[in-house]
């Protein structure tokens, strides 16, 4: 029972705006929850902090996760997602500026489902977002919701 919600974890407001614009441009009208650092992302997923009392039955269809984040970085967030029974099966797409081999290795080791590098050219970026939406929101069959 998909909610078709997207969790975008992004600290850069420009990138946030551009990502949202790209989604919109590609007619992806799913609800987008934006978390601006790692802590906020985990609060949302685990119903803690500012998201205390949230209905945890609603889980994102896909999580777009940046690596370079304040407080808790993306890789740590990924580790916690995979460690939690309720969130461990959620599809996580690493969306980052990094092209470092180490980041790719760590991401996949921690259980990332995909690793996408943000291109500088917005048209290319937009195309990437479009394909990402088509794949994860339309083609991909998400995991069954974990009851808790």
């Amino acid at each position, binding site marked *: 029972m998909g909610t078709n919600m997207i969790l975008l974890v992004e600290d*850069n407001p*420009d*990138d946030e*705006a*551009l990502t949202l*614009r790209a989604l919109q441009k590609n007619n992806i009208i799913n609800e987008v929850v934006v978390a601006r650092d790692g802590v906020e992302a985990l609060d949302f997923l685990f119903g803690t902090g500012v998201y205390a009392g949230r209905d945890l039955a609603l889980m994102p269809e896909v999580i777009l996760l940046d690596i*370079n984040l304040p407080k808790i970085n993306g890789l740590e967030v990924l580790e916690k997602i995979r460690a939690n029974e309720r969130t461990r099966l959620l599809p996580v797409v690493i969306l*980052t*500026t*990094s*092209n*470092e081999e180490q980041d790719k290795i760590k991401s996949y080791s921690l259980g990332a489902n995909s690793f996408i590098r*943000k*291109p*500088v*050219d*917005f*048209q290319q*970026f937009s195309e990437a977002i479009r394909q990402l939406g088509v794949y994860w929101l339309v083609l991909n069959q998400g995991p069954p919701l974990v009851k808790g």
Partner: protein
Amino acid sequence: MGPESQGFASQSRHHYWKMALMALGVTCAVAVGLYQLAHLYVLNEAERNIQAVLLAHKGMHRYIQEVMHPTFYKLKAEGLVAEKFYAPEILSSSFVVRNQHKAYNEERKAAGLEEVYYKMAALNPRNPVNKADAAEEKLIRMFNENKELKNYREVVQIGGKDYLHVAMPFLVNTPKCLKCHGNRADSPPGLQLLYSGEGGFNEKVGDIRAIESIRAPMEHQYFFLYILFASSFAGLLVLAGLLFLNTRLRDMVRVRTQALAQEVVERRRAEEEVRKANEILEDKVQERTAQIAAANKELDSFAYSVSHDLRAPLRGIDGFSLALLEDYGEALDATAKDYLGRIRAGCVRMGDLIDDMLQLSRVSRGAIHREAVDLSAMASEIAADLQRATPERRVVFEIAPEITVFGDAILLRAVLDNLLGNAWKFTAKTEGAQITFGRQEEGGKEVLFVRDNGAGFDMAYAGKMFTAFQRLHTPQEFEGTGIGLATVQRIIHRHGGSIRAEGEVGQGATFYFSV
């Protein structure tokens, strides 16, 4: 040999001269003593031999006088011998012994031995043959003056030859002797008849009437002496030589041992110094390694932040420029749209620059993982990729088969990507473009090359091509960041190889490299 040991050698040579002279002196002194000893021994030996002869003679004298004379007088008394009978051949002991010695000498001569002079010398002999010569007269007087003296020995020269002269008192007159040697008138008439004159008469009791005098040649004895001395001396010399040699050898061993000990000490010191120097070097290497590691780590985080933080704003600039164009395009005139287009082109170019810089920094870091890499296959893949990206271009690729090297596959891929990519790029405006990847021999070594017939370059700038950000073409002619060849050169150098470029404007370029 150092000057110190040379000085030591000359000093030790001097030392050996002194020692040799000393040894020779001692040897000569000992030899003189040895000669004296041998001489004495030879004399004693000779004297003993002579004495043996003398004693034999004496025995004969006694037999005649003590056995034959009483028998003779008894026979005379019995009338068996005529009163007047006297024959010195039978009754004179000196006659008998003298002639017996004569016969003895004849026998010696026959046996090849020297004759031995013998005389029963007396001051007043009956027979002039027995008359003492001057030396013997002296001896008779000497023995008479000193009755204790029983023996005399002297080496004398006769006819230029050495003789041992031995004498001993023979007869001391007793009253019985005076029967024949007292007054002539009282002596037996036969004797008086036989000997005229006073010879052999008028002796006194207690006087030594005669001596036995004998002279034996020393030649044979000397020969014995020489042999004895010479062999002893030779033995002595050999012994001295051996002693000297032994001392010398010992000295040599001592000197060598000292030199060796010195050398050992010096070697130990040198080893210690080398060890210390090594320790210092090792410390320095460790220090530098730590510094380099720290610098590398810093470089890593720098590259990382460049990758993240420099690209993010670029994406913003590009994204919002496009947003402007898309959302407010109608409000902008052609110039504004052109400016925005330039802003976006700049962003893309800067993004490429950042990526290339990152690659350049990345090839300098990290270890090289060497393995067998099929460069021919790799080149074919790249050629196919290039063709796929721009399908409208017609380029003939010529790739030599089975070029395999031992190197890092990822880094070598970057090399071929760059070189073939460049060749592709610079033949964009060439009719009948051709790109070759091959190999050739250069001074016994295999050299690989990537050749194209594209834009080429001026050889005057060949050296600058491999410097980062150095470009030989304007962006309008050919795009590029100017970092690719710097990256290629760095990879080749990290593999221990070399790279050079040859070309001519309008005639294409060739990049030769070895891994």
